[in-house]
C-alpha cells in the first residue's frame, strides 16, 4: 500500500485518511442520517481516493479534491438507494456494528436526521459549513460562485434551524 500511496505532492493515502476520515464520515452522516450507510460511503470514498491518488496533480487543494470525491460518491449512492431502498447488511458491515454502537447523543442524531431531510446538495453545503470549511473552498467543491453560495448558505441555515426546532 505505502509504495503507491505517495503522490507527486508527497501526500500519502494514510495521511489523507488520518486527517480527513472523521470529517468525511460526518459529511456522509449528514447525507444519509444513517451511521452504517455513512461508514460504507466513507470507505467507498477512500477507495476512490486510493484509486485516483496517482492521478492527483494538485490543481486543487487536497481537501477540496477529497471532498469532491466524497460528494460525488454520496450523490451516486443516494441515487442507487432511491431505486433500491433496502440494502441488506453484508457480513463485513454486521461485523462492525457491535463495535460501533450509536456514537453520538440523541441531539446529534436529531441533527443528522434534520440535515438528511434537506435536498442533496444542500446537505453537502451545510455539512461543510458546520465543519467550518472556508466559503471559498466550499464554492470550489460544489462548483458554484462564492456569491451564489452565500445566498444558499443563508437559506439552508434558516431551513435547518427551523427543521431542528420543529423536531427537537
Amino acid at each position: 500500500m505505502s509504495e503507491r500511496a505517495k503522490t507527486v505532492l508527497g501526500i500519502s493515502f494514510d495521511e489523507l485518511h488520518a486527517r480527513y476520515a472523521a470529517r468525511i464520515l460526518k459529511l456522509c452522516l449528514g447525507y444519509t442520517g444513517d451511521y452504517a450507510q455513512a461508514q460504507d460511503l466513507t470507505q467507498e470514498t477512500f477507495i476512490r481516493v486510493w484509486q485516483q491518488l496517482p492521478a492527483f496533480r494538485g490543481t486543487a487543494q487536497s481537501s477540496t479534491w477529497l471532498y469532491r470525491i466524497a460528494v460525488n460518491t454520496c450523490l451516486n449512492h443516494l441515487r442507487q438507494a432511491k431505486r433500491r431502498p433496502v440494502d441488506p447488511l453484508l457480513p463485513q458491515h454486521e461485523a462492525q456494528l457491535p463495535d460501533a454502537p450509536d456514537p453520538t447523543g440523541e441531539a446529534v442524531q436529531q441533527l443528522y436526521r434534520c440535515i438528511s431531510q434537506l435536498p442533496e446538495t444542500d446537505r453537502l453545503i451545510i455539512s461543510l459549513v458546520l465543519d467550518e470549511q472556508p466559503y471559498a473552498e466550499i464554492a470550489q467543491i460544489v462548483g458554484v460562485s462564492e456569491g451564489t453560495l452565500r445566498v444558499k448558505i443563508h437559506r439552508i441555515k434558516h431551513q435547518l434551524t427551523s427543521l431542528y426546532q420543529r423536531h427537537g
Partner: protein
Amino acid sequence: MDEFEDLKKLWQQSPVPVAPVDTQALRRANATHQQKLERTQLRGAILLLLTAVYLIYLGFFSRISFQAMTTYVAIVFISLCCIGQAGIGLYLYYRLRSIDVSAPVTAHLHQWETYYAFRKRLIRVNMPVYYLLLNGAFALYFIEMLGLLPITTRLVVLVLYVGWMLFAWFVLGQRSLRREEGRLNGIMANLRTQQAQLGSD
C-alpha cells in the same frame, strides 16, 4: 443565528468512530454505475481477445487442417473483427476510467454527456459495421464447412446460424445497449438534478 451556532457546536463536538478501509470487501459490495460500465467494457474486450487467440490457434497451430484458402481467410477476418471490437471496448474502458470523479458537478456532468454522445455515435456506426464484417467472414467460412454437408443439414445449420445472429442483434445486443443507456442516463439525470439544485437560488 445563535441557534445555528449551537448546531455547529453540536456537530463539531460529536465524536464519530472511523473504521479502517476494507478495500476488497467494499469493491465487491458497492459497485457504482460507473464501475459497472467499466467492467462490462473490460470483460467484453478480454473475452473477444481470448476468442481471437483461440481462433488463430485453431486455424493455424492446431492439428486441424482446412482444404480451402477461404476458410483460413475467414478465420483471419473473424479474429480481426474480434480484435477490432476488443480494441473499441478497451478504448471505452479507458474513456470511462478517465472520467474525473473529483470534478465539480457541472464539469462532471459535461464529461458524462461527452462520453454519452460519443457512445451513441459509436453504436450507430460500429455495431452494423461489426455485424456486416463478421457475417461476411462467416460466409467465407461456410463455403468449405457447408460444402461437405448434405443439403438438409446445410439448411438446418444456416437457419440456426441466422436465427442466432438475429437473436444476438435484436435481443442480446439491444438488451445490453438498453442496460448501458439506462446506467448512463441514470448518472446524467442525477447530475442534472444536482446541477438544478445548485442553480435554484
